[in-house]
């Protein structure tokens, strides 16, 4: 019987986050994929960012409600930083869509060539800002990342070991 891949919320988050980080690094070097796939990777990345936010929606709602009330300073810093990251990532994706060479978005929106130049400049700048803020974001969540990777890679193997040792323990008592 085929083993079903069981995904809980944490596992999904971890897999999605790893994919997002890899996709971001690959998208930073458009020459690695070529223009066509760079644009589709960017669109997929935008969708994945939305899913990433939706998976943490409870946290977003609770901190938004308590932002000016009773909440920890770290949660506030996290919230503001995430907001900056969202803005940077949003700028990357939107500017990428506008200057797209495969999708006629600029023509559809009637963007002039002068405005397009500004969007191109934004598309060069925003990933650099996003890279910096992403580093801070990952650093602030580093404990969670390490703990979750440990839980899903080393812990399952550890759980098997005590079961083998169980008969020995029972004979002693």
């Amino acid at each position, binding site marked *: 019987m085929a083993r079903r891949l069981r995904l809980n919320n944490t596992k999904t988050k971890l897999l999605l986050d790893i994919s997002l980080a890899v996709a971001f690094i690959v998208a930073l070097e458009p020459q690695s*994929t070529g223009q066509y796939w760079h644009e589709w990777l960017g669109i997929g990345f935008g969708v994945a960012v939305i899913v990433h936010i939706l998976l943490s929606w409870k946290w977003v709602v609770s901190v938004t409600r308590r932002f000016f009330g009773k909440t920890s300073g770290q949660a506030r810093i996290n919230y503001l930083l995430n907001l900056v990251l969202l803005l940077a990532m949003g700028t990357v994706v939107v500017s990428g869509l506008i200057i797209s060479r495969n999708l006629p978005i600029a023509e559809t929106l009637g963007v002039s060539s002068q405005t397009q130049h500004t969007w191109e400049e934004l598309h060069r700048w925003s990933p650099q800002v996003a890279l910096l803020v992403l580093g801070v974001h990952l650093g602030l969540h580093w404990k969670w990342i390490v703990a979750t990777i440990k839980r899903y890679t080393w812990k399952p193997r550890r759980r098997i070991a005590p079961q083998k040792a169980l008969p020995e323990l029972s004979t002693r008592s």
Partner: protein
Amino acid sequence: MSKNQKSLVMLVIVIAVLGLSGYWLDRTGYLEVPRVFDVPAVLTGSDAGGSAMGERPAGDFGGQDRNAEFEGAGQGERPQGGGGHEGGGGLSERVLLSMASDVWFLAVTITAVVIVMRGAALVKAQLRRARHPAMAASS
């Protein structure tokens, strides 16, 4: 080995790896300082900027070259014959090294944040101990 000692050893290893890889990337000329770190260029508004790590070797794959290569005409103009599967990708040596440079900056930022956070937690714990010595002694 205690948990603190383990953390310290890990920190030394991480810093050594980052330092050596950064030195190697810089020597190869592929260590590209992200524009946000390029303070002189930001202040003067010049696009050429230059690397904070010194001059790049001739024929190097700097930020401007990289953009120019991919953007074609530059200055807002799209390259002719746009659309379709233009600019075919591939993992050449310089693409891989540019990618490594991005990963290096990401790793440095993460490490810096983790060190600052751990430091802040240690200072907080010390202050708590100083304020409530009785509680610290019981625990």
